[in-house]
């Protein structure tokens, strides 16, 4: 063993790093570390401004780095592997990074907003308990309300900014990870901050903490499955690199049991993160309990990251064994669409409704992912982009409709909203129509390209089921629209806050991109279809 070790040490070479290619990653993760230092050394009054400036600058710098690399002269057309082959920067990754950074921008703007909720949507200190200090809090039960004076004096927990940046960095590594170990580390780097962010709501502390516990326990459970899958695949292929696993599946002398068990466990972990089908149990609870800006961040960015990872794993490692697993993922996609569409009908809370809608959308996305052709790849990525922006804007609107206890998320409170605020109701209607997939919205184009890819791959029955599911899902979106326009507002109904600059920009960005991708989708489709994965 000792000779074995020493021989290996002599052969070890420091891996080549293409700093240009991984610059967006390094900027985001470096700024996250800097942001932690801000928390440690800046006085409390300066932190919010400093963190917002740093976070927005980081996103801009990372975006600029990405554009410079993607349009640079020396950039290989198909992309390249760097950091000893653990990170692949190819065309799909560049697309997904760009999408993640833009969606992250929208989410950060919602997170930073302090106009809708005095002091921001986040608690001043994560250790504040519901009901702690009766002079500071009033109210009872699980809906504790901090006084306005307290909120404006102590502001919000600014640690949410470094957590956001770490999560975003993890997501970016996740979609680019070319081996399963890197993917696991990225999965944890993106998940751990999200668990914490769920528990930081200023209002309804107990619901928020409950969401954090549920997300954490189920998330840790799912990542253990992912990891056992990695271990079994390592045993199967002798390596965790996606390309090596793909090569191993073509050989016949290996144990298929290890392959199938490993694949199954790995995919369970991934589908959990993407809140697909039968692995969605956490989604409605966590979406409802988390602070709405965090829900927006989770719903949009985690979905992009998780499906980016699923695409890469399916295309990179398991494309050649697709006959064996295709049937299972058919079943999962059907289950996801049916669960999302049917349970969405019964919801009375708008955040839970969007959560079930995200489960149904995850089913549609999975159809694109298992098509395993070029249209499926570009279609799924386009769908991710379209869905992400729509959902960020939708949660932005949800955060505006408020009553004395904070956000009024119960659907009955949304009755007659169009009479109180025609603009907000109009934008929300547009976003719901995009989620339902009506023409002239990005949702229609997204569904169209994904279903076209599935038909190309010979999955006509699946597409038929998907069309039925989207028709069922359209019903609950339309129900909200009817409620907003054709019901009388309750006398003690919620008011619609006038959003500050940050929330306005985030909602406008989301709604505008939803419209642009619906009316003129070809540039984004070209961008999404510019190339395929390299391994």
């Amino acid at each position, binding site marked *: 063993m000792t000779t074995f*070790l020493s021989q*290996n040490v002599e052969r070890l070479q420091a891996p080549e790093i293409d700093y240009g290619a991984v610059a967006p990653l390094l900027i985001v993760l470096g700024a996250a570390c800097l942001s932690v230092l801000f928390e440690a050394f800046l006085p409390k009054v300066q932190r919010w401004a400093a963190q917002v400036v740093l976070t927005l600058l980081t996103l801009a710098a990372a975006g600029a780095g990405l554009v410079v690399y993607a349009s640079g002269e020396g950039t290989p057309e198909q992309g390249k592997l760097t950091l000893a082959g653990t990170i692949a920067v190819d065309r799909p990754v560049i697309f997904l990074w760009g999408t993640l950074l833009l969606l992250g921008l929208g989410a950060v703007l919602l997170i930073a907003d302090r106009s809708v909720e005095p002091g921001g949507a986040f608690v001043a200190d*994560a*250790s504040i*308990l*519901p009901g702690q200090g009766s002079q500071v809090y009033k109210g009872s039960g*699980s809906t504790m309300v901090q006084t306005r004076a307290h909120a404006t004096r102590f502001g919000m927990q600014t640690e949410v900014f470094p957590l956001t940046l770490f999560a975003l960095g993890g997501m970016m590594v996740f979609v680019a990870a070319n081996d399963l*170990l890197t993917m*696991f*580390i990225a999965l*944890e780097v993106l998940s*751990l901050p999200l*668990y*914490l962010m769920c*528990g930081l709501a200023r209002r309804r*502390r*107990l*619901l928020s*903490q*409950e*969401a*954090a*516990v*549920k997300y*954490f*326990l189920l998330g*840790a*459970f799912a990542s*253990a499955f992912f*990891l*056992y899958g*990695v*271990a*079994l695949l*390592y*045993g199967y292929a*002798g*390596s*965790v690199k996606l390309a090596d696993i793909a090569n191993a599946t073509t050989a016949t002398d290996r144990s298929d049991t290890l392959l199938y068990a490993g694949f199954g466990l790995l995919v369970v972990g991934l589908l959990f993160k993407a809140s697909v089908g039968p692995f969605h149990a956490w989604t*409605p*609870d966590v979406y*409802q*309990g988390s602070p709405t800006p965090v829900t927006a961040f989770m719903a949009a960015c985690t979905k992009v990251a998780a499906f980016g990872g699923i695409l890469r794993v399916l295309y990179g490692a398991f494309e050649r064994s697709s006959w064996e697993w295709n049937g299972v993922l058919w079943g999962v996609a059907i289950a996801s669409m049916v669960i999302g569409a049917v349970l969405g009908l*019964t*919801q*009375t809370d708008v955040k*839970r409704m969007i959560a079930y809608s995200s489960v149904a959308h995850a089913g549609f996305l999975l159809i694109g992912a298992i098509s395993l052709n070029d249209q499926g790849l570009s279609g799924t990525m386009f769908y991710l982009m379209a869905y992400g922006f729509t959902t960020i804007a939708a949660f932005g609107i949800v955060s505006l409709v408020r009553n004395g206890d904070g956000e009024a998320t119960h659907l009955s409170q949304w009755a007659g909203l169009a009479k109180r605020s025609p603009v907000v109701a109009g934008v929300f209607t547009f976003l719901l129509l995009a989620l339902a997939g009506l023409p002239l919205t990005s949702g229609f184009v997204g569904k169209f390209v994904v279903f076209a890819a599935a038909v190309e791959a010979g999955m006509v029955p699946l597409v038929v089921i998907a069309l039925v599911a989207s028709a069922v899902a359209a019903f609950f979106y339309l129900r909200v629209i009817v409620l907003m326009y054709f019901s009388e507002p309750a006398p003690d109904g919620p008011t619609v806050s006038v959003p500050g600059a940050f929330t306005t920009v985030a909602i406008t960005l989301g709604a505008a991109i939803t419209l642009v991708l619906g009316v003129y989708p070809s540039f984004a489709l070209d961008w999404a279809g510019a190339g395929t994965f390299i391994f």
Partner: protein
Amino acid sequence: MTPTYYLLLSALLFSLGAVGVLVRRNAIVVFMCVELMLNAVNLSLVTFARINGGLDGQVMAFFVMVVAAAEVVVGLTIIMAIFKTRRSASVDDSNLLKY
């Protein structure tokens, strides 16, 4: 001693952890069961490294340990926060979010 036995032990430990997560009611114990699952994976990784004659699996086990440690920090924080509120760490009590 064939390494297969270690794989079986690892599968057994993993299953015990998974069952524990499903049946235990205390959040701390649930979390310990998740840790048991991660350690079962470590045993698998090291065994496979031995079978394959490489060191990758052993290195991965270290990565898993570091991640597990980070997860403990985050997990105990969250569980402690809700324990302070509810004076209970039972996962059955966290039932406000439903339907």
